């Protein structure tokens, strides 16, 4: 700053503004640094998962191998991806990841059978049929449903869904449900992903311009025709995006399936059987607090890596779909 008493005013403002410019650049750098943290998180996830998972397969972790440790595979990829028994912590260990992947897939598919039809129908009703008053009641309840923690859904499964919904149905068709079952896991994961499907699909349907609807009405179409043959196809990209997000969420869902579906890794189609998802295995291992470097500890990261890659594939598919089907009505 100018200290001279006779300094002209222009000079002072120029100095102040230089100071402000400097501060502006500093803030820009700091905010860029903040943004860098999200990138660092992504990089760190990849590094940590691959590093520890390689300890599971090769005995040495990735960074140790880079530093010159000998590479000797102790668990082959063939065993890992095709073996049908999963018990890394057993006295006679088995390292086939298929049973837990199967558990995750059955719960995901079962959940999709609930969340996709019900979520889509809810979205259609809210967007096409419901009056303002009904919409104002339905949407907040869906938001509440979406805001309930997954642990609560798990509790709901063991204290309400299994004994009072699934067990009576099971009796009718000759299945006996224990405390935990594949069907219970699929049911609650399906219920918890309904709001996701409904709200994203409804947004997509809302963005379909009324001109399309009116055009169809002018041709003599009924409300049913307009909903199913005009609105649904026009909103298809957003609707598919909601399905993919719901499936991705179901794959990564942890606490509800750990409580509802159980910890018994087996390949089964019986919905009353106890199964184990990848996430449930991780919960089981983390509860055991296995020591660092043991095969149990490393298997945690191997399974985590498979889980992460599956959800990543879903998210990338979602990005791709968004670009492929981008319909701009506005």
């Amino acid at each position, binding site marked *: 700053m100018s200290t001279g008493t006779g300094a002209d005013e222009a000079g002072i403002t120029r100095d102040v*503004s230089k100071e402000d*410019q400097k501060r502006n650049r500093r803030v820009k750098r700091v905010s860029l640094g*903040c943004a860098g943290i*999200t990138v660092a998180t992504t990089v760190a996830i990849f590094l*940590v998962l691959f590093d520890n998972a390689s300890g599971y397969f090769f005995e040495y972790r990735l960074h140790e191998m880079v530093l010159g440790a000998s590479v000797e595979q102790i668990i082959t990829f063939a065993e890992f991806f095709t073996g049908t028994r999963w018990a890394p912590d057993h006295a006679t260990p088995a390292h086939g990841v298929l049973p837990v992947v199967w558990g995750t897939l059955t719960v995901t598919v079962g959940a999709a059978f609930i969340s996709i039809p019900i979520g889509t129908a809810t979205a259609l009703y809210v967007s096409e*049929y419901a009056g303002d008053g009904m919409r104002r009641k339905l949407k907040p309840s869906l938001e509440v449903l979406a805001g309930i923690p997954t642990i*609560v859904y798990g509790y709901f499964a063991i204290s309400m869904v299994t004994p009072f919904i699934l067990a009576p149905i099971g009796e009718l068709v000759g299945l006996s449900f224990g405390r935990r079952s594949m069907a219970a896991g699929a049911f609650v994961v399906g219920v918890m992903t309904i709001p996701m499907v409904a709200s994203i699909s409804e947004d997509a349907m809302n963005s379909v311009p009324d001109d399309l609807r009116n055009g169809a009405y002018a041709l003599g179409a009924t*409300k049913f025709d307009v909903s199913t043959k005009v609105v649904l196809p026009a909103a298809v990209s957003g609707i598919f995006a909601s399905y993919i997000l719901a499936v991705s969420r179901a794959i990564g869902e942890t606490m509800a399936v750990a*409580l509802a579906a159980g910890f018994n890794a087996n390949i089964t189609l019986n919905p009353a059987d106890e199964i184990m998802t990848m996430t449930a295995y991780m919960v089981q291992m983390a*509860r055991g607090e296995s020591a660092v470097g043991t095969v149990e500890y490393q298997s945690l990261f191997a399974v985590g890596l498979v889980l992460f890659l599956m959800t990543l594939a879903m998210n990338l598919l979602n990005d791709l779909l968004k670009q492929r089907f981008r319909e701009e009505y506005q």
Partner: protein
Amino acid sequence: MSTKDQLGDIIDEGVSYEEVRGKLFLSLCIAASFFGIAMLVLLLWDVIATTHQAVFEFNVDPVHFLTQTSSRTAENAGFYSAIIGSLWLMVLVSVMAFFVGVGTAVYLEEYAPDNRWTRLFEANLANLAGVPSVVYGLLVLGVIVNGAGMGPILLAGALALALLIMPIIIVSSIEALRAVPDGVRQGSAAAGATRWQTIRNVVLPAAMPGIITGTILALARAIGETAPLIMVGALFITTRTPGPLDRFGAMPTEIYTWAAQPERQFIAMAGFGILILLGVLFTMQGIAVYIRRRYEVDFGE
């Protein structure tokens, strides 16, 4: 009257199939919409009923429940240390996630050039939002708990939760910043303000209600999360209340521990715990909605 009805029947004959189909479809949609609500009502009723059972059948004294630390026996177990753990988590998570999240949003919305890197950045953000919460727990387990050798302390759990909700805070902050019209920024720039002066004096104050609302909703999400805490090693029966550098349990992990027990009293107490957890969450969500309604700046667009 009869002739009119007959006439109506004759006219309707051609369209009656379509009408029936339309009505059937509508009732299916209504039924589907109410399925979600029915599940919500059933869930809340279940939680209240088990709380009632805990208090009146198992004689769980609510005062005892709220003031005792956790224990291996159902008679002595309480929720106090879990509540304190969750409060600590809430404070630490909000400090860690808020500034970084808002900073990132400010960069992306106000400073970042519109080029390929920025778009890659946004795609990365979308993918981070889709990463399962257990994976964040694994990340912190590998890097902080074992990598840095800090052990399963509360701070590590807070870090996992902060990373988990960071993308949510960023996205909602970006939306809030985007809602401030460009004319406001240009007006400030025309008066000679720098970018940062514009952001600090004009844009951020206008966007703050939206940012705060998004942050509170994200915090509510973090408080209910269980999986990352379990990965970090939070299933620990603490007989004393945890601080940031202690081993810890939080409300959701305590609920999980109880719900996984075979004893019916523990399961009923898990219901009680859930009632408290849901009470906290609904309060936070209510505050968030109130702030949005009360303080939102309307630019008349």
